[in-house]
Each structure stands twice: as structure tokens, then as C-alpha cells.
């Protein structure tokens, strides 16, 4: 690497420095917009005792779900963990610690971490199990709870295109949690479908500026669809 060139050429290099016990933030919604090859690299690497922060934990055989096979995940912070039998089994048996977090709160926890905000008040979750043990406050007649932001030792992100400086463009609903995840990692690794030269992306169209990005790698994506629903062709 030199100057602002963030491009790395191997997955080993992309995930170097990830160690047992670290906190990993991952972009994606279901299997849409997930950094699938970076996840596979973590599986191959065999890193253990990870705290993983992501909206979902993949399915039994795809996405973050594959890290459960060898019990690499100690704790999962997510909003929705259905559609994954192995996850359910490990959660019910107590092998896996789970912190269910409302989806908007989860997005905000990442966004806040990236913006240097340690905690924020939200009405979401007030009076529910999510509020247990958290400070609450009444502001202008409404009740709010204090939620802390989440910083990751690593963030893994899937974008559509990057330039070599790490400026990112996402595609359709594959954007989801990825831009917030990108800001919340001490080291942010991005996997993309195409890498272009600086200047080729319209600066007005960049979703995530390269300042948040440490490493970029070009990947081949399987893009598994969870619920293929169609209408008949006319």
C-alpha cells in the first residue's frame, strides 16, 4: 500500500490483524449486501470468541451463519435471528450469548460510534425488555432510554464499487447497514465488485468517503437470495 491506495490483493491480507476475542461489525441485511468472502476468510482463519454485531446472523449455510459451525462466535448483537436453525440451537443451549437490539437502534449505535457519539437517547424500546438496566429520562413529556454506541475492532463491508482510495458506492438495498458499519470499525475492510481509478466515481455520487476505509479487496459474489418471489411475466 502506498499513499491513499487501500487495495489489498489477498483475503489473508484483508483480514490480517483480526484476533480471538475481538468485536466485529458486519454490514448486510439478511444475505443482501453481505461481505460474503470476508466472512469465509474469517471461517478459514478460525478466529474464535468473536463478538459479532450485525442485523442478522446469516442462515445455517450462508453469511455469518457459517461462523457458527465451529463456534467462532461468542456473542451476537442483532435485531433478527430467525431462519437459522444452528443459531437457535446454540442460543437455546446457552452456548451463544445473544443481545437482541432494535434495528434502528443498531444502525444508530454504529452511526454514533463512527461519529464519536458515545451514547444517545431513543424512545425505541422504552418499557420493554430492551430497556432493562439502561438509564431512562423523560424529555418534554416523552420517555427515552440511553443506548451506547458500538465500535468494532474490525468492520467488514460489502460495496458495489470502490476507487483505489476507498471511496465507496453501494447498490440498491445492498447498502443497508454497510455505510454505518464502515464508519464504526477501527479497521474497516471493504469487499467490492469493481475497483476503479480515483476520479472515475462522480464525487457527488460517493456514498462513503474513503477516509473511513482501510482496506479494499475485489471479490466474486454468489449473492444468495433468501426469498425469491416473482410475478408471472406478462
Amino acid at each position: 500500500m502506498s499513499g491513499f491506495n487501500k487495495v489489498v490483493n489477498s483475503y489473508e491480507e484483508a483480514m490480517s490483524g483480526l484476533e480471538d476475542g475481538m468485536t466485529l461489525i458486519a454490514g448486510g441485511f439478511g444475505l443482501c449486501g453481505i461481505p460474503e468472502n470476508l466472512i469465509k476468510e474469517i471461517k478459514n482463519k478460525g478466529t474464535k470468541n468473536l463478538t459479532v454485531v450485525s442485523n442478522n446472523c446469516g442462515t445455517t449455510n450462508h453469511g455469518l451463519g457459517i461462523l457458527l459451525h465451529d463456534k467462532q462466535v461468542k456473542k451476537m448483537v442483532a435485531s433478527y435471528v430467525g431462519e437459522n436453525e444452528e443459531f437457535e440451537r446454540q442460543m437455546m443451549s446457552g452456548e451463544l450469548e445473544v443481545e437482541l437490539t432494535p434495528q434502528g437502534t443498531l444502525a444508530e449505535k454504529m452511526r454514533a460510534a463512527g461519529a464519536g457519539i458515545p451514547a444517545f437517547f431513543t424512545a425505541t424500546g422504552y418499557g420493554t425488555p430492551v430497556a432493562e438496566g439502561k438509564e431512562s429520562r423523560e424529555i418534554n413529556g416523552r420517555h427515552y432510554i440511553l443506548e451506547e454506541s458500538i465500535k468494532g475492532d474490525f468492520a467488514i463491508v460489502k460495496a458495489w464499487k470502490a476507487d483505489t482510495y476507498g471511496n465507496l458506492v453501494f447498490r440498491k438495498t445492498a447498502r443497508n447497514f454497510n455505510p454505518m458499519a464502515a464508519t464504526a470499525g477501527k479497521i474497516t475492510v471493504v469487499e467490492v465488485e469493481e475497483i476503479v481509478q480515483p476520479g472515475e466515481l462522480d464525487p457527488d455520487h460517493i456514498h462513503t468517503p474513503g477516509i473511513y476505509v482501510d482496506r479494499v479487496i475485489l471479490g466474486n459474489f454468489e449473492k444468495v437470495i433468501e426469498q425469491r418471489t416473482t410475478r408471472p411475466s406478462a
Partner: protein
Amino acid sequence: MALSREQLAQRVAQELQDGFYVNLGIGIPTLVANYVPEGIEVMLQSENGLLGMGQFPTDEEVDADLINAGKQTVTMATGASLFDSAESFAMIRGGHVDLTVLGAFEVDCQGNIASYMIPGKLIKGMGGAMDLVAGADNIIVTMTHASKHGESKLLAECTLPLTGKGCIKKVLTDLAFLEIKEGKFHLLERAPGVSVEEIVKLTAGELVVPNHVPEMQFPT
């Protein structure tokens, strides 16, 4: 007769207004999109980052990068916009969505809702439901009035862990359309052919019944 899934969706659709931004939950709420009254425009918000959700794609149109909050492949309507999850929940939590429709296991006459967790059984998570109920002013809960065993789901106090506290004002069940105010359920309409007595029998929370309870109207 209790309402069918389609009739529940049809009745909710009658609450849509021209120019509404609407978030539809998974299940029956999703069906509401099929019954938008003619002559009005609504835009559907999908909390994974799409405003202006279109119909399901044809085989040729399927795009793995374009799904809804139920993880189903979708298309975009004309004038759609795409954004990240923080932006999406800024819309929801900031109160910018005009109508939210979602399902529930239980509601009570304090406006509490339980919809995401049955301890010891089903633990899948709340997804965006806690944000939706806390952020929206106009929410319609669609649910069955009672369990298969005849146990009311409209209670004096929810027994399951809450999704939100004091946030529900309108409930549409397969038997009735009700409003929650001042700590009571108020019966507004009944399903065609369903008696007030039956609704009273299956409502555990305090229920206010006016002298005349109209039947719901459906286009034939």
C-alpha cells in the same frame, strides 16, 4: 363470519389516504399493498432502505441486491429512492411515516403491544418493530381477536414481553375494528355477520360498546 386475511388487508387499505408514506409489516400487512383504493397514491417504505417499493419482479427482473424487509425480491416503483439503514430509521423514528401496519401476539387497553417474543418458545428478535411502534403516531395493528382455543388477545394487560408501551391506538382483528383511548378498548366496527356479544365475549380488556356498532363495508 370472521374476516379472511384478504378482508383484513382490504379494511386496512380503506384507511390509506392520498400521499401517504406507509410501512407495512410482514404477513397480512404486506397484503394491504394489493388493495390500495383507486385514484390515490401511496408510497411504501421498506425499512431495509427503500422508499417506493414496487411489485414482485418477473423472473427476468430478479435482482439479489433489491429486496424488502421480509427478504423477498421486489422492484422499485417510479420515483423510488434508496438509502442506508440509519436514514431509513431516521424516517421511522423521526415520525415521518404516515401509517404503519403491523401484526401482534397481544395488545392491551393501555396501548401496549407484544409482538416479538414468546419466552421459552419463539425467539427471533424484534427487527424494526420496536422502532416502528415507538416512532409512528398512526399505527394499525392487525391480528386475530383470540387464539384457536378462544383465549382473548385483547387484554387488560399484556402477558408477553412488550414491543412498545402505550403506543397503539387502532386495532383491526378478524372480528372487529377498535380504538384504544383512556385505558379502554372502544368498539368501532364489527366484521360482517359477527355479533357484538361475540366480540364482548372474546375481549378480555375493558371494552366500551356504543349503542350502534356498524358492520364493516367491503366493495363487492
